């Protein structure tokens, strides 16, 4: 029976963690919109929008997943790693700016109020469906890209997809039980963690695709996560006092 090496286990854990956290963050944002539509107009239309959006996203994963895994691994690592680097740096930049106070935090209560107002103004089943569909589809698209890029590069699209489904189900259950408490989710911390995982994977895969040999193979991912975490922590610490001075 084949056994997984330490490095491979580390790779799988970070892959699952990245997909799980990214799915959680995006689905909290989507759920806020769905709940607002449901409360303000109609749960039937809101849920129909969710089902259709999830169906389209599932078709995207099923269609693009096998196609991506058939690309030679070296080229795939460079392209996918590059996309993850760009995406991860964007997430991390936003999280650092929010932590230092230079950018407003994502406010789920505000989004809830704005969406509710929009639905009430339009007051139609169709508008409720479209808003719910767009919310889930657009937020879900980012998750699909992460699932496809990370899953295909690691040749584990199935594992990545299952992790995303678990996260979505978990958010749906928790959201169902505490629909108006979504603003309590520490979204910026989750976004920071996802950004760290994405740039670690991006660095690792682009390096590997370009012929770099990482010491410790997959275990180098942990070192990269630790290194980037330290860097992000130092950046937040370095830029935070300036904000205090601005406000005083």
């Amino acid at each position, binding site marked *: 029976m084949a056994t997984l090496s330490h490095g491979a286990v580390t790779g799988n854990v970070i892959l699952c963690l990245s997909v799980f956290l990214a799915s959680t963050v995006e689905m909290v944002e989507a759920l806020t919109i769905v709940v607002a539509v449901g409360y303000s107009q109609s749960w039937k239309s809101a849920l129909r929008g969710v089902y259709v959006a999830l169906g389209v996203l599932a078709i995207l994963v099923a269609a693009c997943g096998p196609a991506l895994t058939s690309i030679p691994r070296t080229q795939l690592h460079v392209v996918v790693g590059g996309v993850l680097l760009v995406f991860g740096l964007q997430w991390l930049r936003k999280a650092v700016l929010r932590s*230092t106070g230079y950018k407003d935090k994502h406010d789920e209560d505000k989004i809830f109020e704005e969406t509710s107002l929009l639905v009430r103004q339009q007051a139609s089943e169709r508008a409720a469906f479209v808003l719910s569909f767009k919310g889930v589809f657009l937020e879900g698209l980012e998750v699909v890209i992460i699932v496809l890029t990370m899953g295909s590069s690691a040749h584990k699209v199935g594992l990545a997809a299952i992790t995303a489904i678990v996260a979505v189900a978990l958010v749906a259950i928790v959201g169902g039980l505490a629909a108006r408490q979504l603003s309590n989710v520490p979204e910026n911390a989750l976004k920071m963690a996802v950004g760290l995982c994405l740039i670690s994977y991006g660095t690792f895969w682009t390096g590997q695709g*370009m012929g770099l040999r990482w010491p410790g193979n997959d275990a180098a991912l942990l070192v990269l996560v630790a290194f980037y975490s330290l860097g992000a922590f130092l950046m937040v610490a370095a830029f935070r006092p300036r904000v205090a001075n601005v406000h005083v």
Partner: protein
Amino acid sequence: MKSLQRALVGFGRFWWDFLVGDTPEIFITVVMMLSVLAGVSMWLHHASAAVYVYPVVVLGALLVSVRRAIKR
């Protein structure tokens, strides 16, 4: 024909927003980093130092982007 054109434009716009958006410096830096890395691994076959330099450059790119946003 028009719907195909609209779909293509939409597809292109999605990737532009996704990869470039309001942080073109990140996209440009990543492309530059990958080009330099490709050159290094092509001409210097045993560039083991690149393993240590590369993550530092990535972190530098983040720092530059954050500073740029703060100055704005």
